[in-house]
């Protein structure tokens, strides 16, 4: 059985995992970080998006051993203690969710979007960038509003314990 070691939300983790173990399974079932969701398991829905070495990826489409030595950030690592990350706060303020199942992936995608494209995101850009995230409640309007607001709010410097983020 392959051994894996990586950093998840700033903590070093190490263990054995079957070669078939997907990163999302490792996060949810071994580390019990269940904030990262599995929606479709076919790389379509984006509920499982996490950051690996600072880049948004679908954790259902990566083996755990592929994250060997990597820095992984999940939704659980975004807030600074009791203080929500500005993007999380923006989703709350703008009611950027209905059932909430897609929200962790939406937020991780949104934060990645800001890292790549900056703080002033127009609606068209946000919608295009959300191509890989599906909301089955179809609550996209408020998700788009949340991301635009969250992007601006991140300008002040996002509180996060990960230097890479």
């Amino acid at each position, binding site marked *: 059985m392959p051994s894996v070691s990586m950093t998840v939300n700033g903590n070093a983790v190490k263990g054995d995992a079957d*070669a078939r173990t997907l990163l999302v399974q490792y996060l949810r079932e071994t580390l019990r970080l269940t904030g990262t969701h599995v929606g479709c398991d076919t*790389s379509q829905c984006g509920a499982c998006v996490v950051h690996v070495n600072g880049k948004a990826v679908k954790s259902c*489409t990566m083996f755990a051993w592929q994250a060997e030595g990597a820095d992984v950030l999940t939704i659980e690592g975004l807030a600074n203690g009791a203080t929500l990350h500005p993007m999380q706060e923006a989703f709350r303020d703008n009611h950027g969710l209905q059932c909430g199942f897609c929200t962790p992936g939406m937020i991780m995608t949104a934060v990645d979007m800001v890292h790549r494209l900056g703080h002033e995101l127009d609606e068209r850009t946000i919608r295009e960038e959300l191509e*890989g*995230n599906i909301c089955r409640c179809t609550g996209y309007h408020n998700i788009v509003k949340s991301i635009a607001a969250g992007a601006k709010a991140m300008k002040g410097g996002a509180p996060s314990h990960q230097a890479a983020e």
Partner: protein
Amino acid sequence: MYNFTYHRASGLRQATNMLGKFEEAKLLAGGQTLLPTMKQRLASPSDIIDLNKIDGMSAIEVKGRNLVIGAMTRHADVASSPMVQQAIPALAALAHMIGDPAVRHRGTIGGSIANNDPNADYPAACLGLAATIVTTKRKIVADEFFRGLFETALASDEIITKVSFPVPKKAAYQKFRNPASRFALVGVFVAKRPSEVRVAVTGAGASGVFRVPEFEAALKKRFSPKSLEGLTIPADGLAGDIHGSAEYRAHLVGVLARRAVADAG
């Protein structure tokens, strides 16, 4: 997913040896096609050879009149590379249209080309730009490389190392996307090269990417969307499925070719 043994290759020679040694081995580049197909049990490799720890396989460089892209270069890096944007903007734009942002962070150019999905984008760029696919054994021109549905000229122990694109005078790619899969229902890559014009079509061919000689001849006389007016391709031999009939795809080829020529300017 069926079980497998994984191997981390530290170099191309080691990866090649492993490919020769294991019966049903598969190379892992970005894994954005391999993993989903393994989950569906459409692929069940005995061994997976990971190429991700091999150094020096994701460089982007301009060599003479060619843009050379390492096989492990991710779609996101091709899309955002100032070098690609300057040399062949159509190629950067094409890479930006693949999948979604998370998929583009993982998927690689070499993986896409080796897989030769009939609806993938990169095969159209390779054929349209007359690219040369460089492997651990030889150099293969795009016209010889793509052999059919998911079939290429690659030998079982051959690995793509880079792709060399001659810089064209003008080029553009137009994609009519399947909104669910984000693959091309039809995609047309048009390039005006010093010696010829190429029109390469993905998504429509029953046996993968192909060129349209009639369109190329018309565009060689005059590179304008008007040159394509009234020209069509027969639906015979094109792919038809629940997403679009062969006739619909044939129609799209004409429409997208004209749009691509207009876009190339």
